[in-house]
């Protein structure tokens, strides 16, 4: 009997307590953040979409090598003599044409391991996190700044330069072979004739002439 009345009292009491709790929560400000309209502030060092500043990229491939999921693909072409690729903002001279710089951001795991090895600090994590796409192919970001014709152009130039270098090398090799043969035929002989292809060209001593004379130390003399 006591239990019966106790249960009824407890039932009513706990319902009232519950109602008080929910009624108070009715006027508690909601914790909802209405996302597209209101955004939470990202942490200072949040890692989101990768960005490459191609002006500073020297095509060293270190980011690609560091990537644990191989999502960066870089191809480069050597520049030829006379090409001016400019310098990076850190003052480094650029020597390679970057003909491919693709980041498959769908594969990216946002570890930022590519960021640390970069010698020119041109690859970095941004705070952009809204970049969904309807097609997975659109998530392969292409950062190359050269146009297709420019790429074809530098490739041809590089190929020509390579061919020339190979011919020179072949010629040098042939000359060296011929010289060796001549040497063998003529018996012991002095050093290679100067100006022979492939041999280091000795600098004319006259070239160093203007800087050679040391400035007189006269300004110091009167002081002492």
């Amino acid at each position, binding site marked *: 009997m006591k239990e*019966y009345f106790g249960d*009824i009292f407890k039932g009513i009491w706990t*319902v009232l307590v*519950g*109602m008080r*709790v*929910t*009624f108070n*929560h*009715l*006027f*508690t*400000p*909601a*914790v*909802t953040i*209405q996302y597209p309209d209101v955004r939470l502030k990202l942490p200072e060092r949040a890692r989101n979409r990768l960005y490459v500043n191609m002006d500073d990229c020297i095509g060293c491939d270190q980011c690609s090598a560091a990537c644990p999921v191989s999502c960066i693909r870089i191809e480069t072409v050597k520049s030829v003599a006379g090409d001016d690729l400019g310098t990076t903002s850190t003052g480094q001279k650029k020597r390679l044409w970057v003909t491919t710089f693709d980041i498959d951001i769908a594969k990216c795991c946002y570890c930022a391991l590519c960021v640390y090895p970069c010698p020119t600090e041109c690859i970095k994590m941004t705070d952009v996190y809204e970049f969904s796409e309807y097609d997975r192919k659109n998530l392969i970001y292409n950062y190359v700044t050269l146009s297709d014709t420019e790429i074809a152009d530098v490739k041809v130039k590089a190929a020509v330069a390579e061919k020339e270098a190979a011919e020179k090398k072949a010629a040098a090799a042939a000359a060296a072979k011929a010289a060796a043969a001549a040497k063998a035929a003529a018996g012991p002989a002095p050093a290679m004739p100067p100006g022979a292809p492939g041999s280091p060209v000795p600098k004319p001593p006259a070239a160093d002439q203007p800087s050679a004379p040391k400035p007189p130390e006269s300004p110091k003399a009167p002081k002492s």
Partner: protein
Amino acid sequence: MVDFLKNMLGGDIPAYVVVAMLPLFLWVLPYALFAVWMERKVSAHMQDRLGPMRVGGWHGWAQTIADILKLIQKEDIVPAAADKKLHLLAPFVVFVGSYAAFAAIPFSSAFIGSDINIGLFYIIAVSSLVVVGILMAGWSSNNKWSLFGAMRATAQIVSYEIPTALALLSVVMLTGTLDLQRINFLQSGPVWNWFIFAKFPFIFVAFIIYFVASLAETNRTPFDIPEAESELVAGYHTEYSGMKFAIFFLAEYGNMFAVSAIGATVFLGGWNSPFGEFLGGPVWGLFWFLGKGMFLVFVQMWLRWTLPRLRVDQLMHVSWKVLTPWAFVCMLGVGVLTMI
């Protein structure tokens, strides 16, 4: 009101048709749209969320309209093994059961659909039709969850009709009439003339019993085991989609208001102003009546988002061992207090 319409429309039948449709189009449909939105907002804010916020601009007020448009466009799926006729008929029977109660509800001193002298009895009787519809829906769906839900609903509603009727009967003992308009007139005057304060505390307890039992009759939490979504998918309306589901929903919200309206009429003074003559009259009467009804609807929502669901045995315990005996105690108390 009915006489006025008879004169204006020049015949009994058009007047009755208009009177029958007035509460539906002027109140039940707009109310259901509003109440579904309100339910979502109340639930959201009680859980420190915001609820619908986008449709229509201001706090998602048009969310339910968008939902209804979606439900209208949906395919009307009838399961292959279902009893097609009963499956089709069930939502309408449920809705008829809940809407028929509005015929005898006094909205204002000037408007009552049918001013019959057994209004309260009629409402209690006709709202039992809901059980038939629910059982029909559960049986015809040919789905074990639906059938479980329907059987639970039947057991629950039949059990809880007894405390409901007994609680109302203690007021009827006081008034000596079942005419709802007459019950309203008896409560005219300031707040303390309302029956909830009469024969204190017996009718107050009767009101609480009525309110708890009416929650069970409308299958609302904490008595929503007929559609317990964690156990029975959706109970008796598992196999319903589109407009048929919408009609079940409309019937549920209509029923919520119907029981609230009876509670407001019988215990809270109906369309009487709480300040006696001040702000009285038919138009203010409508306002007070709808306001009291909506307040009770809000309390129903409040309880829904506060309390967990009862188990079936607990449900029966509450009905038979707590509410029914206490309803008898109230009746007895009112009788004794009336005698002395």
